[in-house]
C-alpha cells in the first residue's frame, strides 16, 4: 500500500487542522477533563515515590501551571521500572477533591469554625501546656502514621520524647507491621528485610502467605508474573484463607483455616527435618534454637502486660517440639491436606530451587503475629534459603513510610531513632544528638496504640494529636474508642487533608499539605529511602505536618531544639537524623544523592547500596566468608519454637462465621483520598460483604441483597457480593474497610498479639442475616 502524494497532503493537512483546533480554541478539547489553559507541551516531569502502599513505586508527576496534571511510571526507579497500578496513575487527582481542608478549624460551642492557622497552633500549644500542668506529661500524646514522612516522625519523636519527656508517641503502623518488627527483632535482632525486590527476578518459586498481592502490591505481583512468563519454570503458590485475584493468577492455591498457618509452618519444618532436607552446614554455623512462653493471652483487657522469656534448646528439643506437627495431625486442624503440606515442604527443601516467601497483613494482623513471622523464618533458616538473591523471607509493608518513618525513626512508644528507650546507651545517644538533658527521655514505655486509645477513654490521656491517619475508621472495636475520644475534657487535634470521621470528633483541625505539596522522604519495604521535593504549592493555609509540629514546639518554648528555617528544614532534619544511623549496618545516603536518585537503599556504605544484608558477599557489615547474622550477640539467627494456639475468638453456635477484613486494589486504607479520585470511586463506589455462594444460598442471600453482619460488639448492614473478585470459603465473610458509611471496625475485636501489640483484623466471630 503505497502512500500517494495526494493522500499524504490530505493527512498532513488534516492533522494540522486538528492541531489548529486544539491550539487556537483551547476551550475545544477532546478530553473529559477541564483544560488548565497551558497547552499540551507545557508539562515538566518531577520524580516522587507513590503516595499509596509500601511498594514505593517511582512516579513521574507531570506539572503544568503549578498543578499536577499527569503521571507516568518512573523508568529510572528499580522498584517498578516504569509501571504503576491504577492508584499510582491517578494518585495526583487525590490532591484536588473539592472538599480539601484549606483552613484551620476550632470547635467553638460544639461547632467547627474557620480560624487563622496561627490561632489554631496557639490553642494547641496552650492546651498541651495546661494538660501537662494538670495531669502530667504522660497525659499528652501524638498518634501518627506510616504515611508520615521521615521528617514528620522525627520531629514528633524529638518533641514528645526528647523535649516534653513522654513516650506517648505511636503510629497506625502499630496496626500494620508491629508483628513484622517483633518477628525480625526476635529472630535476627535487627529490623527490616534482608533481601530486596531483586529477589523477584531471581526466585524459582514464590509462596505467598495470606497475601493478596495482585490487589495489595500489584506492581510487585506483576513483576513476579513477568518473571514467570520469561522463565517458564517459575511457580507462584498462593497459601491463603480465601480465594482472591492472586489465587486466580497463581499456579496453585492452597486454602487453610484461619490461624492454622502456625501449625502448617511447623509441619513444613517437621517434613524438612524428616526428609533430611536441612542445610546442616548453614544451621550449625548460623542458627541457634530457643523456646519462649506459651499460652500468652490476647490482650482484650485493659492494662494487659506480657513479656516473653526465651530459653535455649538444642536440635533434639526442636525435633521433640515438632512431633505435634506431623502433616497428618496438622491436616485435621488446618484443612490443608497432608499432601499439600508435604508439597510445600518439598519446595522449601529442594536445594535446586530458590524460594521467596511474601507476606503482609495476613501474618501481621494476627494474635500470634510475631510467632508466625518467626515460624516462616524458621523454614528459611532450616534450609539456608535466606540473604541471597532469590532466597528471601520477605515481609512486605502496607504504607509508603511504615519502614522509613515508624520503624527507622522509631515513632513507637518503646523506640528511639536508634534503639529503645529502655537502653541507657540509646537514651544517651538520642540526648546528645537532640541536645537535650538525658533525664528528659523516660526509660519506661507508656502505651501501645490500642492501649493509648483505651487510656484516652479512661482519662489517663487527655490530649491527642492525630496526624495523617483516620483512627475513627480503623481502630478495632471502634465504638469504645470513638466514645472515649468524644468524652468531655478530652482534646483531640487532627491534621488531615480531607474531612473524615476522625476530623468529625476533632477539637482542632489543621489543614495539611499533602505529599508533593511539601518536601519529604518515605522509606519502602526494601530499605529504600525516597526523597520528593515540593512539586506543587500547598493549597490555602495547608501546612506541612513537620512544620506544624515545629510551630507548636516553638510555642512550647523549644525554639532552640527546632531552629531550622522554612527554606531548608527538611535537609537540616535529614542531616541531624542520619547521625543516629551512622554505622555500616544502617548508614543512610546523603541528602544530595537522595535528591538525584529514585530512591537509595540502606545500608549505604562507601557509595554503595546493600541489596542483601547478613551475607558477606553483599553486605560490608557482615564478617566472615558467607553469612553473618550480626543483629544477635552470638552472630546467629534464631529458630524459635512457637506452637499453634487458637484465635482469640472463633466461630461458635451464636456467631458461626469468621469475619476477615482488608483492602481492595482501588482504595487506599480508609478511602479518604482514593474515594476522591474519580475512576477509583467509580470502580468501587461502596463496600460490600463477600460471602460464599453456598452460604448465601443457605441464608437466602442474593448478590447486592442487604446483609447484616453482627458480632458481640456491633453490627453493620451492607450489600452482599457473591462470586465477586474475592471468594471466601464456606464459613467466612470478607469486608473491605475503606468505606466510612459501613464501619466494619465496629464489629471487629481489639485482641492483639501479646508480643507486638498489633490487633488481629482478620479473625473474629460474626453472624450473618439477610435483611
Amino acid at each position, binding site marked *: 500500500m503505497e502512500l500517494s502524494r495526494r493522500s499524504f497532503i490530505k*493527512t*498532513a493537512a488534516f492533522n494540522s487542522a*486538528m492541531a489548529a483546533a486544539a491550539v487556537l480554541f483551547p476551550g475545544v478539547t477532546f478530553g*473529559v477533563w477541564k483544560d488548565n489553559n497551558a497547552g499540551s507541551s507545557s508539562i515538566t516531569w518531577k520524580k516522587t515515590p507513590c503516595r499509596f502502599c509500601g511498594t514505593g513505586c517511582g512516579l*513521574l508527576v507531570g506539572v503544568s501551571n503549578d498543578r499536577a496534571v499527569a503521571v507516568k511510571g518512573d523508568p529510572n526507579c528499580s522498584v517498578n521500572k516504569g509501571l504503576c497500578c491504577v492508584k499510582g496513575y491517578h494518585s495526583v487527582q487525590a490532591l484536588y*477533591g473539592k472538599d480539601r481542608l484549606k483552613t484551620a478549624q476550632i470547635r467553638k460551642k460544639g461547632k467547627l469554625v474557620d480560624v487563622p492557622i496561627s490561632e489554631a497552633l496557639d490553642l494547641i500549644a496552650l492546651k498541651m501546656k495546661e494538660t501537662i500542668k494538670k495531669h502530667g506529661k504522660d497525659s499528652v500524646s501524638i498518634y501518627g502514621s506510616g504515611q508520615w514522612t521521615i521528617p514528620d516522625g522525627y520531629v514528633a519523636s524529638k518533641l514528645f520524647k526528647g523535649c516534653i519527656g513522654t513516650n506517648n508517641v505511636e503510629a497506625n503502623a502499630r496496626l500494620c507491621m508491629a508483628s513484622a518488627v517483633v518477628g525480625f527483632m526476635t529472630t535476627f535482632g535487627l529490623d527490616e528485610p534482608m533481601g530486596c525486590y531483586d529477589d523477584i527476578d531471581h526466585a524459582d518459586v514464590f509462596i505467598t502467605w495470606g497475601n493478596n498481592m495482585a490487589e495489595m502490591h500489584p506492581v510487585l505481583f506483576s513483576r513476579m508474573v513477568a518473571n514467570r512468563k520469561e522463565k517458564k519454570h517459575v511457580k507462584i503458590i498462593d497459601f491463603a484463607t480465601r480465594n482472591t485475584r492472586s489465587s486466580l493468577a497463581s499456579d496453585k492455591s492452597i486454602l487453610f483455616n484461619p490461624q492454622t498457618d502456625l501449625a502448617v509452618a511447623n509441619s513444613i519444618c517437621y517434613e524438612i527435618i524428616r526428609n533430611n532436607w536441612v542445610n546442616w552446614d548453614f544451621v550449625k554455623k548460623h542458627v541457634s534454637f530457643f523456646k519462649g512462653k506459651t499460652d500468652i493471652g490476647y490482650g482484650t483487657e485493659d492494662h494487659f502486660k506480657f513479656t516473653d522469656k526465651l530459653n535455649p534448646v538444642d536440635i533434639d528439643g526442636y525435633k521433640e517440639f515438632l512431633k505435634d506437627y506431623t502433616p497428618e495431625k496438622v491436616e485435621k486442624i488446618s484443612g490443608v491436606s497432608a499432601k499439600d503440606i508435604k508439597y510445600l515442604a518439598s519446595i522449601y527443601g529442594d536445594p535446586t530451587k530458590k524460594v521467596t516467601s511474601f507476606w503482609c497483613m495476613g501474618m501481621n494482623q494476627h494474635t500470634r503475629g510475631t510467632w508466625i513471622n518467626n515460624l516462616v523464618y524458621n523454614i528459611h533458616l532450616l534450609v539456608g534459603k535466606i540473604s541471597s538473591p532469590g532466597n528471601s523471607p520477605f515481609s512486605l509493608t502496607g504504607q509508603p513510610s511504615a519502614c522509613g518513618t515508624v520503624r527507622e525513626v522509631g515513632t513507637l512508644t518503646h523506640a528511639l531513632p536508634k534503639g529503645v528507650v529502655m537502653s541507657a546507651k540509646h537514651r544517651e545517644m538520642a540526648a546528645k544528638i537532640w541536645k537535650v538533658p538525658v533525664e528528659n527521655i523516660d526509660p519506661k514505655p507508656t502505651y501501645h496504640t490500642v492501649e493509648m486509645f483505651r487510656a484516652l477513654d479512661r482519662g489517663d490521656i487527655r490530649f491527642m494529636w492525630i496526624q495523617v491517619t483516620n483512627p475513627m475508621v480503623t481502630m478495632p472495636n471502634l465504638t469504645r474508642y470513638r466514645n472515649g475520644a468524644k468524652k468531655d475534657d478530652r482534646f483531640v487535634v487532627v491534621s488531615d487533608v480531607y474531612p473524615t470521621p476522625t476530623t468529625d470528633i476533632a477539637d482542632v483541625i489543621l489543614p495539611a499539605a499533602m505529599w508533593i505539596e511539601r518536601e519529604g522522604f518515605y522509606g519502602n519495604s526494601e530499605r529504600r529511602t525516597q526523597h520528593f521535593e515540593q512539586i506543587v504549592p500547598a493549597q490555602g493555609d495547608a501546612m506541612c505536618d513537620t512544620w506544624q509540629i515545629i510551630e507548636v514546639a516553638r510555642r512550647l518554648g523549644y525554639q532552640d531544639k527546632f531552629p531550622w528555617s522554612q527554606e531548608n528544614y527538611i535537609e537540616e532534619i535529614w542531616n541531624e537524623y542520619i547521625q543516629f544511623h551512622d554505622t555500616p549496618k544502617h548508614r543512610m545516603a546523603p541528602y544530595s544523592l537522595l535528591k538525584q536518585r529514585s530512591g537509595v537503599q540502606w545500608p549505604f556504605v562507601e557509595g554503595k547500596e546493600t541489596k542483601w544484608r547478613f551475607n558477606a558477599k553483599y553486605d560490608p557489615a557482615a564478617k566472615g566468608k558467607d553469612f553473618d547474622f550480626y543483629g544477635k550477640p552470638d552472630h546467629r539467627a534464631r529458630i524459635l519454637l512457637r506452637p499453634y494456639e487458637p484465635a482469640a475468638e472463633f466461630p461458635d453456635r451464636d456467631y458461626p462465621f469468621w469475619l476477615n477484613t482488608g483492602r481492595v486494589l482501588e482504595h487506599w486504607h480508609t478511602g479518604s483520598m482514593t474515594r476522591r479520585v474519580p475512576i477509583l470511586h467509580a470502580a468501587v463506589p461502596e463496600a460490600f460483604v463477600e460471602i460464599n455462594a453456598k452460604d448465601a444460598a443457605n441464608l437466602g442471600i442474593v448478590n447486592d441483597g442487604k446483609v447484616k453482619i453482627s458480632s458481640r460488639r456491633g453490627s453493620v448492614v451492607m450489600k452482599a457480593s457473591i462470586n465477586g473478585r474475592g471468594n471466601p470459603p464456606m464459613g467466612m465473610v470478607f469486608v473491605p474497610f475503606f468505606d466510612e458509611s459501613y464501619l466494619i471496625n465496629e464489629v471487629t475485636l481489639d485482641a492483639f498479639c501479646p508480643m507486638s501489640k498489633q490487633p488481629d483484623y482478620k479473625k473474629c466471630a460474626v453472624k450473618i442475616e439477610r435483611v
Partner: protein
Amino acid sequence: MEKPDYKLGKVTISFAVICLLIVMGIIGNGLMGGDDTKSSIQSGVLIAATAGFDEKGAANFQRFESTSLAYLAGTSSDRNLEEFYSRRQYSGSPPFIPHPVDDQFGAEKDCLSCHQNGGYTQKWKRNAPVTPHPEQEMCRQCHMVKKTDQQFVDHDWLSVPPPRLGGSHLPGSPPPFPHPLQMRENCIACHVGPGAVTEIRVDHPSRGVCRQCHMPEAAHIEPFDRDS
C-alpha cells in the same frame, strides 16, 4: 480509504502553518524555565520515552511481521478521538474498561484473547482495540470497570489538552510523535487496523519501521549548538 474528515484538511493548510508558529512559541516558552533540576530529569524522561521502542525493537518488528496485511489495511469508523479521550483522566492515563467484565475472571490474561491481536468481536459488535503492552498480563491492575458515574465528592481536576495531531516541522513532513512511548512502544497497536482510532490511523500501515520517519516531539529537545 476515503475519509470524509479529510475535506476539513483541504482548506486549512495555510491555517496550519500559522498554528505551527504559535505552537513553536509555546514550545519556546516551555524551554525557558529556569529550574536547574528540570533539564536532567527531562533528558532522563526523553531517553525513557524513546528507549522502550529500541529495547523492544525486535518484539515490535516481530509483531509487525506477524500482523496480516489484511489487518494492517483494515479500517473502521468504530472509534474516534473523542471516545478515546472520554475513557481517560488525562492524556496517557490507563483507560477504563467500557464493557462489563466477569469479576471471577480466571486468568487475568483472558483480556488478551481479544486485545492482543484485535479483530471484530461478535459480542460487542465492533473491532477490539489492541493493547500496546500485551506483555503486561495483570490488566486489571490499571484498567477498571466503572460501576457508577457519580462522584464521592466533586473534584477540581485540570490537565493539559491532549497532544496536537500533526505538528510537522515543514508542511507535509512526517509528523513527530507527540506522546511518550513508555507502555506504548508498539506503534502499530494503536495506529493501524480496524480497532484503531480513526483520526490517528496511518494510511501507510505497511511501512513497519515507524521511527525511520517519525521522531520525538521537538518540545523536549535542545536546539543544536556547536559552541555548547
